[in-house]
């Protein structure tokens, strides 16, 4: 009865995962979808704790440990997720993803320990009959697959997290791609050797594979530039899904299998969609045309001319007498936590009869859709957010474009300079507007490390300073007018 009920629970959980994911891709139903999947997950966890029985009909024990772990994880997870600033969301997702990968790797390690232990109690490896050997090999294969994928995902996510946090910088050495490929090949060959031949030193080989996989995870993410981190996180997300599915194979557990593969497939597609939004291929992202090596080949460097600075009061004056203003928010706005101040500015301008909208590039901020989340947090109306195509049509009829901490998404080099690393990426054509005011902290190149010619164009005026401070001062000036 109990185990049949558990099978039903797992079935329902798998269905909630599918429905949840489906609803997550529609704006209006997304939140409910998330809750449905969460409910399915809660049922699956509770069912496993109370109803699970192994092949011999033994229930689980160590309940104190299980509940202790669940409690600690739940409290820490809730606190971390509640406290994290909206701007730090991408790191958080990466961190949680790494936890999942580590969990899968730990399961593999413990199960390997069981396997070795059982073998020692049976007898030497050589005396075992072939069907048993085959079963053993398959079991081991799944364990090793979970180990490799889980630990790559863990190590990679940790590096991605640290990079987004600014804790570590891009790091490349000559021939790193070849090194990475060689490393992956070695891991693969060792795994095949271990599972296919069951060599005598198998135990130490297992831990060598673990170490190399962790190393690969680090070197895989290290050379990829900060701007491409979302794509990498999405890819690692799907890796963790596959690692979870390995667990499903191991325990013959359909909920783990469906959930894991579902995320593996959806995550891979999402990764590709994200690349498409930047008009690049996945290969191009992974081999990396951004990043430290390309910083010097920005293309625009030689053309650096003079830029024009504008004072706060002049900027306020221009905006005060404009009819239509489009704000282009970018990463700088997110860093300065200026989304609320930005909304205030919008309200003051609206009160003065100026029409204000926002132009959102698909990859503005640090992740696709990140900017929408940030502005939503500040209560900016959904109707005011224009997507790229819409905004590009609206620019010619716009008096002032205010670029707040955005850089690469308005860089004309993407259209004009074939040598630029971002060549081909669709951009916001802010130059079509009558005037462009760019707020930046300094003339330093942006997130992707590419010079931006826009700043040197005659229509553009620069307004230096921290986005939040500048916006507050602008509001002050506007109030005084």
């Amino acid at each position, binding site marked *: 009865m109990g185990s049949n009920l558990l099978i039903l629970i797992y079935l329902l959980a798998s269905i909630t995962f599918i429905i949840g*994911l489906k609803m*997550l*891709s529609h*704006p*209006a139903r*997304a939140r409910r979808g*998330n809750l449905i*999947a*969460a409910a399915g*997950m809660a049922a*699956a*966890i509770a069912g496993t704790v109370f109803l*699970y029985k192994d092949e011999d009909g033994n229930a*689980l*024990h*160590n309940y104190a*440990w299980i509940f202790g*772990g669940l409690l*600690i*994880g739940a409290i*820490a*997870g*809730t606190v971390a*997720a*509640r406290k994290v600033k909206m701007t730090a969301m991408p790191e958080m997702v990466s961190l*949680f*993803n790494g*936890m999942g990968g580590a*969990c*899968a790797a*730990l*399961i593999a390690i*413990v*199960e390997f320990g069981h396997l070795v232990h059982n073998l020692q109690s049976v007898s030497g490896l050589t005396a075992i009959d072939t069907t048993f050997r*085959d079963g053993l090999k398959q079991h081991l294969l799944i364990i090793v697959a979970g180990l490799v994928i889980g630990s790559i995902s863990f190590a990679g996510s940790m590096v991605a997290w640290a990079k987004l946090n600014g804790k570590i910088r891009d790091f490349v050495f000559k021939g790193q791609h070849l090194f990475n490929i060689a490393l992956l090949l070695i891991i693969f060959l060792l795994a095949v050797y271990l599972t296919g031949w069951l060599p005598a030193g198998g135990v130490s080989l297992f831990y060598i594979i673990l170490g190399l996989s962790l190393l690969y995870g680090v070197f895989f993410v290290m050379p990829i530039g900060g701007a491409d981190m979302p794509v990498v*996180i999405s890819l690692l*997300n799907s890796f963790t899904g596959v*690692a*979870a599915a390995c667990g499903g194979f*191991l*325990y013959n557990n359909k909920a*783990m*299998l469906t*959930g*894991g*593969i*579902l995320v593996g*497939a*959806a995550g891979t*597609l*999402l990764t590709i969609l*994200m690349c498409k*939004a930047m008009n690049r291929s996945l290969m191009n992202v992974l081999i990396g045309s951004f990043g430290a090596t390309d910083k010097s080949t920005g293309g625009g460097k030689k053309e650096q001319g003079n830029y024009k600075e504008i004072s706060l009061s002049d900027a306020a004056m221009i905006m005060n007498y404009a009819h239509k203003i489009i704000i282009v928010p970018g990463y700088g706005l997110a860093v300065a936590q200026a989304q609320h101040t930005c909304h205030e500015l919008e309200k003051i301008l*609206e*009160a003065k009869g100026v029409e204000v909208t926002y132009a*959102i590039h698909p990859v503005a901020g640090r*992740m*696709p*859709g990140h900017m929408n989340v940030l502005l*939503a947090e500040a209560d900016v109306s959904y109707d005011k957010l224009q997507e790229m195509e819409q905004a590009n049509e609206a620019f010619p009829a716009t008096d002032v474009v205010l670029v707040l901490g955005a850089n690469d998404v308005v860089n004309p080099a993407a259209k004009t300079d074939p040598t630029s690393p971002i060549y081909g990426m669709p951009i916001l054509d802010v130059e079509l507007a009558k005037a462009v005011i760019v707020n930046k902290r300094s003339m330093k190149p942006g997130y992707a490390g590419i010079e931006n010619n826009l700043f040197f164009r005659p229509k553009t005026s620069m307004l230096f300073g921290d986005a939040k401070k500048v916006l507050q001062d602008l509001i002050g000036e506007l109030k005084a007018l």
Partner: protein
Amino acid sequence: MEAILSFISQHQQMIYIVTLMVFVGIEVIGHVPAVLHTPLMSGANAIHGVVIIGAIIVMGQAAKDNYPALALGFLAVILGTLNVVGGFVVTDRMLEMFGGKRKSPKKEIRNPK
């Protein structure tokens, strides 16, 4: 070769599930708007937290005197729970904002006029 064939025949049910799930996963999010990429990634991140089930089983089957297995299993349960709970809460927080703004903006636009 024979090993592969026997693997497939022994696990054919699982392999069917894997194959079908790949298509379901692709189909289900095929038309997601770019705006929802971040929440969707976060939601998917929470769903692969099902790996927690494996962690619970590992923990629950560990022998009482097998301290390495107990310690690793315990750690696995904590990390898995972090993944699940943190993932769902973060996603909900992101989506809460989407929901909130859909209703409030219309009021705000009407009020000033």
